[in-house]
């Protein structure tokens, strides 16, 4: 089948401003990933087309893009999901460097703000620290995050101000705050309670819809908000 794919193009070394270019892929099948189409366009029609990709099955988080207006991973979006007229654009709220490649640094900077690492200052036991299956389940959902930025760059509050930590950072804070083995929950809640923290979330649910890992992002944010409000984890 023939698929028409309209792609946002911008090469800072040549272009004064961005534009869209339309390509046709005539040997597509409905199980092709959007990433496969991009590869074909790059391989046979325009080698200058630039985008990030690696694992190609939705785990590495490299190829977050706006596909027909929705934040998705190009490798986890099939032609049969989006039809034969496809528009591909960079995710919003981060500076476009070239074509579909955006500057991820502000995103990772926000991630680092919440101290996304395990903290337990007790002496290490000889074997594992015990944890019940119920306690482990408490933060299971937020361990799935692959830092693709689909959630954060779908959030109007983040578009308004990229200092807002954003849903991905809160998800990663949640992963530690609700881990029974971790001891720094209160410190993380303090960071999230600051001016560019969790209160900028207005429960719009874009993040939850955008997450390719189907993390219940808004629910996780709600649990963190409740912990801040009640002081209880």
């Amino acid at each position, binding site marked *: 089948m023939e698929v028409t794919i309209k792609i946002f193009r911008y090469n800072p070394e040549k272009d004064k401003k961005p534009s869209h270019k339309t390509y046709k892929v005539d040997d597509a099948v409905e199980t092709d990933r959007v990433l496969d189409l991009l590869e*074909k366009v790059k391989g046979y029609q325009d080698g200058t087309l*630039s985008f990030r990709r690696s694992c190609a099955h939705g785990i*590495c988080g490299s190829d977050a893009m706006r596909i027909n207006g929705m934040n998705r991973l190009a490798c986890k979006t099939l032609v049969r999901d989006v039809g034969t007229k496809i528009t591909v654009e960079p995710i919003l709220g981060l500076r476009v460097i070239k074509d579909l*490649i955006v500057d991820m640094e502000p995103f990772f900077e926000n991630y680092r703000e919440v101290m996304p690492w395990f903290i337990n200052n007790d002496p290490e036991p000889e074997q*594992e620290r015990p944890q*019940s299956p119920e306690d*482990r389940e408490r933060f299971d959902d937020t361990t*799935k995050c692959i830092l693709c930025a689909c959630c954060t760059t779908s959030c109007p509050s983040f578009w308004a101000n990229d200092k807002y930590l954003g849903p991905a950072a809160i998800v990663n804070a949640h992963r530690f705050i609700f881990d029974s083995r971790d001891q720094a929950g209160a410190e993380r809640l303090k960071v999230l309670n600051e001016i560019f923290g969790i209160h900028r979330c207005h429960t719009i649910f874009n993040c939850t819809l955008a997450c390719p890992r189907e993390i219940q992002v808004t629910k996780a944010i709600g649990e963190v908000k409740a912990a801040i409000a009640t002081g209880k984890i």
Partner: protein
Amino acid sequence: MKTHQFEVIVVGAGGAGLMAGLYASRTAKTAVISKLYPTRSHTGTAQGGIGAALGNIEEDHPEWHTYDTVKGSDYLGDQDAIEFMCEEAVQAIYELEHMGLPFDRTPDGKISQRPFGGHTNNITGKPVRRACHAADRTGHMILQTLYQQCLKNNVTFYDEFQVIDLLMVNGAAAGVVAVELATGEMHVFHAKAVIFATGGHGRIWEITSNAYAFSGDGPAITMRHGLPLEDMEFFQFHPTGIYKLGILITEGVRGDGGVLINGKGERFMENYAPTVKDLASRDVISRAIYLEIREGRGINGKNYMYLDVRPETVNKYAAVDGRKNPDGSPYVVTGQQILAKLPDIVDFCRVYLGVDPITQPMPIQPTAHYAMGGIPTNKYGEAIADEKDTLVPGLYAAGEVACVSVHGANRLGTNSLLDLVVFGKYAGLRAAEFARGAEYQSLPADPTEFTREQFDRILSADGTQNAFDIGVEMKKVMFDDMGIFRSGKGMQNALNVVRELQERFKHVTVTDKGKIFNMELMNVWELGNLLDLAEVTTVSALAREESRGGHSREDFPERDDQKWLKHTFAFVDEKGKIDLKYKSVTITRFEPKARKY
């Protein structure tokens, strides 16, 4: 051009690179350079588990793990290194847990373990629960946890810097040359010690579980400096990739009771591995699938099989096998439990196949998965210059890029994650120790010369050939003739085609002549790496006239310990000629014997 100085440079930020960076940075000024953001690394796609004889659920011992790994390697693994890895495994898992890794738990709060292929109770021969897991995203959790710990400990990263060359001075490592992708600028990293942790090269094959990033940059770079590559003919085909796409379906599916079914509805592994059946090692199962398909017993006569994890199927065969829970009750699962144990597998099948594994069987075929071969090292990650174990001062390798060799001719599932944690750590420790007692060598007068030469050749080629076509043709011939079963005639054909493609590659150019994120230039350079490694793989395989582990020859169907119980060392000279030498296998406790599952 910018120049930086670090005592230790780590190239690659997957599990091995992060572990090396974490340990080296404790005592030495260290930087980790990666062409990807660290969390994009391929370690994150590992699914089912990491092996260690914790014995949390049933009796197990590091000695059993050692024997299983030796047997799995078809006796080509070096037994001193294997014993070292399996002994270190237990502590390594506790260390990961102490770093916060969210393993699944047993009812009494310990790390949960599941059965995996080739891991057995050495008394009964039956599968043992040895794979420590976090659902079916164990690799993701390892990668995330190690990256988090690196951030916590202020490890220095150069993200999206692609290393193109290794600097060697007087036979010792002196640094690397990298391109900053965002600017196209070249950076020289002057170092006392360099650790390669760049992963595998499975993109040589058509059907593969490997990421685009797995273009074999590390071994291609070291090979061009006259350093050897060990056992390149041994490449693992994982039995269960998603049909046509190659995306991995973890062995954990079978560990949790899933079975392989042929077109006649038979559980065919009973005929190939009567004791452990669907939990035989990967080479054995991939061959069985291929043979079934050849006999016309594929699904609908086609070249795929079913992997069936529907609760009714699991429960039926668990009853046949007499499988029990730890408390002695019969093993019975529900759809909900399957979903909880294997959420990503269920998701992959729904997204890519439109198949729901809870109610439908999954169509699978073997997929190129793991390089047993690579840059030769000893058990401390120190790179070796020749078949006599001469060390390369200042050079280290760990993870899939390295060949210790702990996997020999066939790796057991769960041992790759273990490998990168254990050997990443020791490579980091050894490199830092080396750096403490070493001075910086003076850099070559023009350190980026060879890098520029490689790029200039691509930028100025006549452009009469297309890189995409060359890649497709390489992958096809390698899958057809250098896959699960091989023959002299087929391999010779693969070699001829690859060499013709190498010639055509000289005419490939790029339309993107810019500096900023010139991914076209990087991808073409990576294709050159894959072609060179495809050639070394095929030459090494053609010479080995026996069948062992992942190298199965129709014209030499038996293992031949008399002639071939030895490691291949392939050297490429300046004119591109490949010379093969051999090194004996270290055998300590387990004499080679026939391998049955």
